[in-house]
């Protein structure tokens, strides 16, 4: 099994100003991410707001320019590519966004929206060919052919997300980055979309990078789980059922409400809140909230260490 995408030391620095004339401040939205994304598998990235998961999603496709590190896509160094070459390669990697409403032009019919990727890539389709393409894409995501003439405001959230997926699949990519594709949907629709993504992955042999804040969903859907906290990878679970070693992963797991009243859990109390990314402490970023933190944790940042089984964690006192 080979890796479709490899990330080495990937980082992204953002600057912001407090007020118009204020001093510029910098923050690392993503720091030193080294990760292999295996072909034909679902790699999940999980974390809370501000952990850098959406920034990572955009860096992987070079929709954002990294400040540091390397991205290899099928053995091609993405950072070395010129804009036209990158655009051609983009056919093979696509993104599905959280909010399909803002991803589709409200004045486009669904047929227009589904044909836009071909225009951008300069692929000319005849009228009959275009119609057949639209119909097959709609069918692929479980929508009827009559949907081609609808506009975004006429669709439900679930239908819009299906269009978002169909559009991402239009150019027959190998790799899909799914950035919280179900976060704004009702649970019944979320389950529909996940089931559709499972089916498409099996049929088309796709590789997914699935970004989510929901560890329960990630454990169900993904083959491998990457846990991020404040811009860094803190743990990589080689198998979704592996027991967590990082206290933050355990906290995430315990915060997940299991739909079973016979399995009620004590919620471990956390002190403190997520630190500001502009003002990170020198040691482990989770130390202020961690029940096991000691002086070492507050002084020295733990390195991400991978064991022979592929389980990686960045903690001085793993569980």
């Amino acid at each position: 099994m080979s890796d479709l995408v490899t990330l080495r030391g990937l980082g992204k620095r953002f600057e912001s100003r407090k007020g118009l004339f204020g001093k510029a401040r910098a923050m690392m939205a993503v720091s030193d991410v080294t990760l292999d994304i295996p072909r034909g598998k679902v790699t999940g990235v999980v974390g809370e707001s501000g952990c850098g998961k959406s920034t990572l999603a955009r860096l992987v496709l070079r929709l954002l320019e990294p400040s540091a590190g390397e991205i290899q896509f099928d053995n091609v160094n993405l950072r070395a590519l010129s804009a036209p070459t990158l655009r051609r390669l983009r056919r093979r990697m696509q993104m599905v966004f959280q909010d399909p409403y803002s991803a589709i032009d409200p004045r486009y019919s669904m047929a227009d929206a589904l044909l836009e990727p071909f225009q951008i890539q300069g692929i000319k389709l005849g009228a009959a060919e275009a119609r057949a393409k639209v119909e097959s894409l709609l069918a692929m995501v479980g929508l009827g052919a009559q949907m081609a003439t609808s506009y975004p405001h006429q669709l439900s959230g679930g239908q819009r997300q299906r269009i978002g997926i169909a559009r991402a699949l239009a150019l027959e990519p190998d790799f899909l980055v799914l950035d919280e594709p179900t976060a704004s949907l009702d649970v019944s629709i979320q389950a529909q979309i996940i089931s559709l993504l499972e089916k498409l992955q099996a049929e088309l042999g796709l590789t997914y990078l699935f970004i989510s804040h929901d560890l329960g969903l990630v454990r169900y859907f993904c083959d491998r789980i990457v846990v991020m906290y404040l811009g860094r990878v803190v743990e990589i679970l080689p198998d979704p059922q592996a027991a967590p070693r990082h206290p933050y992963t355990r906290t995430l797991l315990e915060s997940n409400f299991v739909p079973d009243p016979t399995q009620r859990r004590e919620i471990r109390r956390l002190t403190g809140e997520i630190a500001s990314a502009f003002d990170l402490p020198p040691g482990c970023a989770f130390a202020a909230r961690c029940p096991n933190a000691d002086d070492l944790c507050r002084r020295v940042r733990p390195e991400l260490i991978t064991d022979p089984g592929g389980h990686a964690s960045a903690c001085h006192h793993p569980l």
Partner: protein
Amino acid sequence: MALLDVKNLSIDIHGIRPLDGISFHVDKGEILGIVGESGSGKSLTALSVMGLLPLIGGRIERGTITFDGTELTTLPEPAFRKLRGRRIAFITQNPMTSLDPVMRVGAQIDQVARLHLKLDAKAAQVRSIEIMEKLRIPEAATLYHHYPHQLSGGMKQRIVIAMALAADPDLIIADEPTTALDVTIQAQIIDLLVELVRDRDLALILITHDMGVVAQTCDRVVVLYAGRIAESHAVQAIFANPRHPYTKALIRCIPREDTVPGSLTGIPGAVPSVAHYPSGCRYHPRCARRGPPCDGIVPALDRPMGGGEIACHFPEGMGNVHV
């Protein structure tokens, strides 16, 4: 007698009826979950009890809402004002809808106690800081002087809960109180609400779309679908033996430890909009168990022997009699 007893409530907003014959009750020391997808009428139920329907151009068409012996549907606004925020508190999803952005958070908590309990400024401040400490707000005496924008989302929601508690209410209605928060913070806030109910013998109505939250916190559950009650029962019974196909499907939408990959399917279609409610049982177009009467006849809300309520022509456990 229940602390809050809602009977056969129907409401009217500009000629449509988004809530149709809703009944439920909640007792002291009890957590009632009202669960359903967007558009099921959860928030409208909360607004009805709070007497806030006129704000959105709605009115109560039929039914009664009795709170501790007082009939609320006919209560004049001045009398309602003495109740609202004092004995019935409301926590909304977005804390910024409850907080004044240009007023220090401490003063906002004080206000509630000063208005409803007639405390003086000094006593109100002492009490506010006490409540903040109980809500596990670190350095409460310092945060008391902060403005909302200086606080994180989780802290803001704790301030809103402090405001809700300031007048020592008997009933709290929390409408998706943690939906906008990060998962670890959500767990902390839910834990806090449960502890409050148990310690102070409050009644809590927890409105949520999350069956996981319901399973972990509630005593009883009302499942709403498209403005009607689908099913209600004790939480253990609802999860161990859901009788309405919608309840069962909703529970199955959340992956669990033992969910087999590929077995998550969701519920086909979507919740209909108020203007396009189907005839008969409103769930029938999405229902796997539907049969001949479902599209024409509204199922009555039955109270079977085992307890709870159910509105379905072909409840689970009856076998597929119509197939």
